[in-house]
């Protein structure tokens, strides 16, 4: 039986069309975009073309509002540190939802050590941000609020427009981590009222090692790394031309194809949820409808997630993910699952499936069946 990969959120394969498009930048069309000779100018042109493609994906005002980075972590750090430190004179309050990605939470916590005031906004049991709590915490000194577009562990999509209205009415800037959502659901930074948006290349089937931060015209941030003047001085260092050109092409394809592809994946995803929830004591985590179209996440009582992952992999060649304490580096349960109110032992039994290009409807039945067998096997081993 050939494998079924259901962990696209962790890593996605490079789109062959993107590979073909970007390949030449590794060999024949190499060049440093800062150089003034013809190769440099060609490289610069390719870089700017990529910037324009990424800008289009999210309907940015202009390509200039896209700052390329080496990935999501770098973009999130640049957004958080860069905006907070730049605006520190106006206020030192920071806000974020409790379920932000670790590359948002950790720079915020670091700023807190440096004298900023940080408050985390709770979410409900389905992972939707508590807007009333957000409103209560916002003030003119809140220089930065960070709320993700959608969560990668539970798939829940946030009401970003409402968040943005509140932030702009009572606070200052809104940063949105859009890495999990871009290419899956439409993001329009102008309509949504986003000041800073993080994007990932690999989530769009682009090369690893590339990301971007959208910075709305007029919003000032400062660099976190210092060096040459690349990316308007915000991300110094010679650009990774191959990865960024690929990222641009991946963004162009995502814009063209995402509506249809998301619909296709959602149908498969809905089938999986329907079948898997037939398993006794299985529950969906996250929101049933306000949810990324390729995302299914569950918990099963009385068993542990790493064991689920290993059994699915070793016995059925199906790759999934989990938020169990046992599988995390720190042996802490996922902060997202705790934030939606799960007890420690409930968070233990989590399983996340994220779908992508290589999935098809024929995989629903074998996957659901494998899940059922896995759960049964582990429950037979469990004293609970």
């Amino acid at each position, binding site marked *: 039986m050939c494998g079924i990969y259901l962990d696209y959120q*962790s890593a996605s394969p490079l789109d062959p069309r993107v590979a073909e498009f970007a390949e030449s930048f590794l060999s024949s069309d190499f060049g440093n975009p800062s150089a003034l000779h013809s190769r440099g100018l060609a490289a610069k042109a390719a870089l700017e073309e990529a910037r324009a493609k990424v800008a289009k994906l999210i309907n940015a005002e202009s390509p200039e509002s896209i700052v390329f980075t080496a990935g999501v972590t770098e973009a999130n750090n640049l957004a958080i540190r860069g905006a907070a430190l730049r605006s520190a004179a106006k206020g030192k309050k920071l806000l974020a939802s409790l379920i932000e990605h670790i590359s948002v939470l950790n720079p915020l916590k670091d700023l807190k050590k440096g004298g900023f005031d940080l408050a985390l906004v709770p979410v409900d049991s389905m992972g939707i941000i508590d807007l009333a709590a957000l409103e209560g915490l916002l003030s003119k000194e809140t220089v930065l609020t960070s709320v993700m577009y959608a969560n990668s562990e539970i798939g829940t999509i946030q009401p970003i427009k409402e968040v943005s209205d509140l932030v702009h009415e009572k606070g200052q800037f809104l940063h949105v981590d859009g890495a999990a959502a871009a290419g899956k659901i439409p993001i329009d930074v102008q309509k949504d009222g986003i000041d800073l948006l993080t994007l990932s290349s690999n989530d769009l089937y682009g090369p690893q090692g590339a990301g971007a931060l959208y910075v709305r015209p007029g919003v000032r941030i400062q660099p976190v790394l210092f060096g040459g003047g690349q990316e308007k001085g915000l991300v110094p260092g010679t650009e990774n031309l191959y990865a960024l050109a690929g990222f641009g092409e991946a963004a162009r394809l995502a814009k063209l194809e995402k509506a249809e592809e998301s619909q296709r994946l959602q149908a498969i995803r809905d089938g999986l949820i329907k079948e898997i929830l037939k398993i006794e004591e299985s529950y969906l985590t996250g929101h049933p409808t306000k949810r990324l179209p390729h995302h299914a996440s569950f918990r099963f009582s*009385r*068993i*542990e997630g*790493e*064991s689920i*992952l*290993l*059994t699915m992999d*070793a*016995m059925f060649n199906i790759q999934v*993910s*989990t*938020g*169990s*304490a*046992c*599988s*995390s*580096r*720190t*042996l*802490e349960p996922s902060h997202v699952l705790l934030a939606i109110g799960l007890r*420690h*032992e409930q968070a*233990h039994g989590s399983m996340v499936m994220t779908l992508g290009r290589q999935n098809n409807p024929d995989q629903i039945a074998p996957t659901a069946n494998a899940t059922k067998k896995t759960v049964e096997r582990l429950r*037979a*081993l*469990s*004293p*609970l």
Partner: protein
Amino acid sequence: MAQIGYSKEVMEHFMNPRNVGVIENPDGYGQVGNPVCGDLMEIFITVKEDKIDDIKFRTFGCGSAIAVSSMVTEMAKGKTLDEAMLITRKDVAEELGGLPPQKMHCSNLGADALHAAIKNYWVKIGKIKPEEAEAGEESHEGEEGESCGT
């Protein structure tokens, strides 16, 4: 999310665990919870001529915890109770071809549950007092480094 490479032996025991199940009316029963991540393991034994005659386990936990449980029951079967008391977490981990550093704490589960079951039997036959069964278990202190926990 689980970027943990397990040895062949660990995967083999995880996929084909030995001695799974429950013994009705066991001579000894031990249950331990994993202090680091909140998992649970129980061991049932029957004793004949001071030797472990039969042994069964059930575990709620990670791949490593399940493999450790399986291995420790294999190691203890047929041993005298005194010999079985000498099985340490290190022995179990070694038999499994090693465990990833952040999973070393799981090997406590196996040895601790085994020792708890033996002591439970000794209390039943009056060899030791209930207080003695509580005391003297391998301390979990000093695990901090291995567990990567808080």
